[in-house]
């Protein structure tokens, strides 16, 4: 069966460091992958989209990589701030449809 795994439930880092979150998938060939941020009691908010033919995408302090051989995406936040503390979700979508499947998320805490 298809699986999307975000490798840790929680990640704690010090302010100023780079946070790296992982999204692995099995039995899946996604055409694209998206990353979202979710704060408690709120809906997810879109951050970045990367397609299967793109290796890397950047937006300000955020960087996403997509390795279809390893079946893995890495999400980096550089120069992390306490305000970056939230749950981060990866989501995968296929070629012939527009439905998206989400991972369970990783809760990031950035300590001052």
């Amino acid at each position, binding site marked *: 069966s298809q699986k999307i795994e975000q490798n840790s439930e929680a990640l704690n880092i010090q302010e100023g460091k780079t946070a790296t979150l992982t999204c692995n998938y099995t039995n899946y060939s996604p055409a*694209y992958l998206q990353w979202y941020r979710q704060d408690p009691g709120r*809906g*997810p908010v879109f951050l970045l989209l990367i397609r299967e033919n793109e290796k890397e995408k950047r937006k300000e302090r955020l960087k996403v990589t997509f390795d279809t051989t390893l079946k893995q995406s890495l999400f980096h936040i550089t120069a992390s701030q306490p305000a970056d503390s939230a749950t981060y979700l990866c989501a995968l979508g296929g*070629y012939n449809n*527009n*439905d998206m499947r989400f991972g369970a998320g990783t809760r990031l805490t950035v300590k001052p």
Partner: protein
Amino acid sequence: GAGVSQTPSNKVTEKGKYVELRCDPISGHTALYWYRQSLGQGPEFLIYFQGTGAADDSGLPNDRFFAVRPEGSVSTLKIQRTERGDSAVYLCASSLMGASNSPLHFGNGTRLTVT
């Protein structure tokens, strides 16, 4: 402009009752999604609409769940004979064309509690 609006924000109902959850998407967005999220989990796909039609309803857990979008805008998720296991946050999202080309814009969800 206004984002995705979901009503009610909270709903408490007794086991066996019928509930309707409403979603008002961003104006002009043709794609609409329903997800269910339990505590500590990611959103679980339920159904996806493109316009008025359900393009993919493979995530609906059983025939107690049904969703409509009669005019291609507002959508209603209907749950019959609610069970305690239906308790979760129900999220709605809309997208300009569909998730492969444009991001999902989520509402803040309806927290459903079945007692």
